[in-house]
């Protein structure tokens, strides 16, 4: 649909009003600060006010409401206490989602960081670094939904005898095997989803780690080389300890992202065949099945699981800063 400026005029007007209001608020604050003899603490408060307001409206209030919802029944809205949480730890589907999420959080960050690290170590000092990194970064430029669709094709199944349209089954058949339904056979289908996610994320790890490796003082590696260290020893004894902070950041960032994994699962299996993860199950419960209470309980669980990672991340950053 072409963009029709005339038809969109009311929206543009709203936008304009919004921008104007924002500018007015900012100028008012600045003006207030500029004029009166405001003390430091008050000044900080005034400057923080808009951000705090937005956070309250966009994050804190919905969060509290979700928390409240998680103690109610989705259909009637009646108070049900901890029923939804009991459900989350007893229902087969919810337990499957929890188990899968655990597998994801363990496997995705470790695998993609390990793969990224090896790649980074290999290309960090290479002449083709830029090219090599852009190659690995390309999957990151694709959205997770796109990656999910691509990998769905890779895993596509045709019956034996028919032409295989999936890369993996094509290879299997070429080597004389029987085509398999990669996304249907449990529990391996979870692993195949994880592979797709790692593929999409490994570029992130590689780029950050390459930068970190390049920041390792060359004197250290040279000294080690002079002392007769092997490349493996240099990686283990010099590089790894030097890039430890970055390594941690990469691992944690990926763990946080993985906990919230949704797109890949939704596009590839929709959580069917026991591949559900927390975020996807939460969506299904809340929006497809109308079980807002259960969905909210899963959301709260998800939040609780992410919190330690985020807390650690923040603390690490504070230490570094």
């Amino acid at each position, binding site marked *: 649909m072409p963009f029709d400026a005339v038809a969109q005029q009311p929206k543009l007007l709203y936008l304009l009003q919004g921008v104007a209001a924002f500018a007015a608020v900012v100028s008012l604050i600045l003006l207030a600060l500029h004029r009166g003899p405001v003390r430091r603490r008050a000044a900080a408060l005034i400057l923080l006010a808009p951000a705090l307001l937005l956070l309250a409206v966009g994050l804190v209030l919905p969060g509290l409401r979700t928390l409240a919802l998680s103690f109610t029944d989705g259909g009637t809205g009646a108070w049900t206490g901890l029923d939804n949480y009991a459900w989350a730890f007893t229902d087969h589907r919810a337990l499957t989602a929890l188990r899968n999420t655990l597998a994801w959080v363990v496997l995705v960050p470790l695998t993609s960081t390990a793969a990224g690290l090896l790649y980074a170590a290999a290309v960090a000092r290479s002449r083709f670094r830029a090219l090599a990194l852009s190659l690995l970064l390309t999957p990151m430029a694709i959205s997770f939904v796109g990656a999910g669709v691509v990998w769905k094709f890779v895993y596509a199944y045709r019956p034996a005898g028919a032409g295989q349209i999936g890369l993996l089954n094509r290879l299997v058949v070429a080597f004389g095997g029987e085509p398999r339904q990669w996304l249907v056979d449990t529990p391996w289908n979870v692993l195949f989803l994880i592979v797709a996610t790692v593929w999409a994320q490994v570029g992130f790890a590689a780029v950050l780690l390459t930068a970190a490796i390049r920041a390792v003082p060359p004197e250290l590696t040279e000294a080690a080389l002079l002392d007769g260290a092997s490349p493996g020893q240099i990686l283990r004894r010099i590089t790894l300890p030097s890039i430890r902070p970055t390594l941690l950041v990469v691992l944690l960032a990926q763990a946080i992202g993985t906990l919230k994994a949704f797109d890949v699962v939704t596009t590839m299996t929709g959580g069917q065949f026991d591949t559900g993860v927390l975020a996807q199950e939460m969506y299904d419960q809340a929006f497809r099945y*109308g079980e807002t209470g259960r969905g909210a309980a899963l959301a709260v669980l998800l939040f609780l699981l992410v919190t330690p990672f985020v807390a650690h991340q923040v603390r690490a950053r504070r230490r570094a800063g």
Partner: protein
Amino acid sequence: MRSGARLALAVITLVVTATACGTPQDGGSRPHTTADCAPYARYGEHPGTEVTVYAENRDREADLFEETWADFAHCTGIDVQYEGDGEFEARIQVRVDGGNAPDVAFFPQPGLLERFARAGRLKPASAGVAALAQQGWSADWNSYATVDGTLYGTPLVANVKSLVWYSPKFFRARGLSVPRTWTELMAVTEKVAASGVKPWCAGIESAQATGWPVTDWIEDVLLRQQGTRVYDQWVAHEIPFDDPRVIKAMDTVGSILKNDRYANGGFGPARSMASISFQEAARRSSPATARCTARPRSTPTCGRRAPGSDRTRTSTPSSCRETTRPAIPYWAAGSSRRRSPTVPRSGRSRSTWPPRTSRTRG
């Protein structure tokens, strides 16, 4: 159940402006936009008014919908904004909760409609719509959109499900006769299977709704085994979802669909149906590849066919023919096939399966 009831019928709800819906109109193949506006005069003229319609149906079905109200829109000046969304069932709640509800929604699941009605999210049909609905539809049909005695919409479109297709050529070549009863059906199935050909083929892949065709099978078999009373109790949740009688129906379905000797003909092991879309299973019977001798057929592929069009089944390979006439005539609002004398016995039973020949078409 969730998906089982889907597509069984769609219902208009949230009627806010006109009373355009109600009695299905006569006069099937009337060309649109050239109509005289006399029949629409009673709705008045509302130039500049916009009505949003949100539904699951896309592509051909959506085009046909738009045709049905083209005259209405032309004559009343109402701009009908149609939006088809394959994720309707998930997004309608988000849209309603987010204060972005459409004026009219086509619900593909009576159960989903009931949820919204109970949550107080639907507007009752106006007195005019209710009167037309009573005049144009039987109580059974109107019951789909009636919650606690309040009518929220009218039936909009129905699709025939539960057909079993077979290859006459294959049957002739093997001297098989078309089964008339369940016992005969299973006898033919066993006979074909014994000769080394998998008799049944099915595809149940449907993205996030994968598996729904099986729910149709289960409903069909439940109706056949237990009749409409148990079925209605099941729908109303008066008996548990996993009532032994339901489990029995599921097992019966499983005895065909999960049986590697019987399924999945032309595709591979029975499990392969999880990766085969239902459309694909329907297509896959060109004479070259037809190892598929019998196959249940359900809605969406039928739905692609023009409602009210003649009975040539263009999307069906000539090598396949339905074993018998559908229990419910295929019709849609705005089609010439207006009301059928044979409404299903129960509100929710759509047909029996395998079909019986004693049924007549309206």
